[in-house]
């Protein structure tokens, strides 16, 4: 490198830093790491910086909840915006750890359907717990509903479910004939009773997304409830696997801001920009997760072909159940989680 170039690089760096420092327009954004956070960097974070000049510092935490508690307990949090399961934002809000969203300053967020936001958070990206199956085991006539998953006569073979009640209880109720619209509030007893039926046929209760993918790829389980992104990754590798969005359980993570965040105002601006339909529409380009803001599908940036693969495109969303974070963070939801371990173990 010539000395002139070095000089230019050094000056521009100083200038950038100087400008950033003067305006203090920066935030610390936290997500769950891995390929998911990398995809977001390209799809959302970089475009937001380009559009607003907000410098986004990143951190990641697979389970943000304990950190939220610790940071807010000290009263001097370091994080600003977090992307975390909606439940964390909601119970955090109730316990005074999360700031209320300033909807007046957030037209994009305010325009979203009310069921996708609450006082503290807004839906950021969608994924779905779907029914995936091995094509070698079932040919083209694979299982298409949770009733099929429960039907061991018509569909023999090994099965795997997630070792967690969330989405699993919903699937059990649908298998028992409850209409998707009537799932919540959940009849927990009925769901567990239905699960007892299928329990002897479950060969694995998986605990991590990677494990569910491995079960499908290795043919260890013929039918698996798994996250759509994991299933499509296995399919892309050429494994004889397929899945259906029919009766999938649509879930989402949300954005929320820590109580007393160091860059509170910028954080709110960041969320508004990140939730704008134009930027949200970038999600499908980088990862198999859908935009939190459904208006993204109307921007024309997402092709019809790509939309058909997305968990929450209007056509696919219509076949599914929207998971209720409110129910799961209610006392009934907490009780269902406590009951789960006893169910699996016995």
């Amino acid at each position: 490198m010539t000395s002139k170039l070095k000089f230019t690089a050094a000056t521009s760096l100083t200038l950038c830093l100087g400008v950033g420092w003067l305006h203090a327009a920066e935030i610390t954004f936290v997500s769950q790491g891995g390929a998911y956070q990398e995809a977001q960097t390209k799809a959302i974070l970089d475009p937001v910086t380009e559009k607003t000049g907000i410098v986004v510092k990143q951190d990641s935490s697979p389970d943000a909840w304990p950190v939220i508690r610790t940071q807010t307990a000290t009263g001097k949090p370091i994080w600003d915006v977090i992307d975390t399961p909606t439940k964390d934002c909601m119970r955090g809000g109730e316990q005074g750890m999360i700031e209320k969203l300033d909807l007046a300053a957030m037209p994009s967020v305010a325009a979203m359907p009310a069921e996708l936001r609450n006082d503290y958070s807004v839906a950021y990206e969608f994924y779905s717990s779907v029914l995936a199956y091995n094509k070698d085991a079932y040919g083209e006539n694979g299982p298409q509903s949770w009733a099929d998953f429960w039907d061991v006569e018509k569909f023999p073979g090994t099965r795997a479910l997630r070792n967690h009640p969330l989405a699993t209880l919903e699937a059990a109720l649908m298998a028992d004939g409850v209409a998707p619209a009537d799932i919540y509030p959940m009849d927990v007893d009925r769901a567990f009773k239905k699960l007892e039926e299928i329990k002897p046929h479950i060969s694995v209760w998986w605990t991590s997304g990677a494990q569910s993918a491995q079960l499908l790829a290795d043919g260890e389980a013929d039918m698996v409830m798994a996250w759509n992104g994991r299933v499509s990754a296995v399919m892309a590798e050429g494994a004889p696997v397929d899945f259906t969005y029919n009766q999938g359980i649509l879930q989402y993570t949300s954005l929320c801001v820590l109580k007393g965040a160091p860059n509170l105002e910028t954080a709110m601006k960041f969320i508004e920009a990140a939730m704008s339909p134009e930027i949200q529409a970038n999600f499908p380009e980088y990862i198999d997760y859908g935009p939190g803001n459904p208006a993204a599908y109307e921007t024309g940036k997402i092709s019809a072909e790509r939309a058909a693969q997305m968990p929450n495109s209007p056509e696919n969303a219509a076949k599914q159940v929207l998971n209720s974070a409110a129910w799961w963070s209610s006392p009934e939801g907490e009780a269902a989680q406590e009951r789960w371990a006893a169910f699996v173990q016995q």
Partner: protein
Amino acid sequence: MTKNVTNFLSPEERRERRMILLLLAPALAVVGLLLIGPLIWMGWQSFQGPDGFTLDHYARFLSDTVYLSSFVQTFRIAFVVTIAALLLGYPIAYVAAKSQGIWPPIILGMVLLPFWTSVLVRAYAWLILLQRRGLVNTMLIETGVIDKPLILVNNEFGTVMATLHILLPFMVLPLYATMKKIPAELEMAGASLGGGGWLVFRSVFLPLSLPGVIAGSVLVFVLTLGFYITPELLGGGRTFLVSMLVSRNIELYNEWGAASSISMVLLLLVFLIFRLASMLIPFERIMGTR
């Protein structure tokens, strides 16, 4: 009396004592700071709820059926693994102790070789071997031994296999160390008194090797009690050990206290096991320092 003895210590001896303390200080500081301190903190925390002092975390041992069944399953698996390790490890240690020349290092080397591979890698290796379309099932089906795959993993069996494989060296090494110290003359004496091979082994060698048996068994048993990776990866969700109960409690109750109370109970049980074992043989021998 003690006071008198101290007074009679010569200046050199006192200097030496100070020197020893000084030399031990860094190690003691590390242990105090990184082990004793956190343990006390954990114990304190297990009595803390949102509103200060509470016995709630311990009350769950009585109200939550999962607690009891987790402890029972953990101890059952630890017991099975220990017995299996003993049955497999004893002959290995015996052959290693009795063989000559280059054989002992070769045998022990083979026992130790897997030791240098990550536990995680070995757990996944067992998954590849034991799963439905894994090596073992494929081989058995192709040779016509079975016609439907056996369920070898994602259950307690898979967990026991992998844990056993990982912990076997902890059984073989103390056994080998003990057996090496048994004088060959004692067996010769037994034989000269007319004892056959089996009788000599049973009445001379076996009793003398018992300290090694106890040392190895206690190590394997106690280590299994805290295992997390193998049951998590190979247990299929049904194998729910105490270590997993600890992590579930953090997730579920969002209370470090809930998890701390389980750790405290497990710790007390481990102390109890060591106490019982040290009534049979001195503690230093369990840890292999003597």
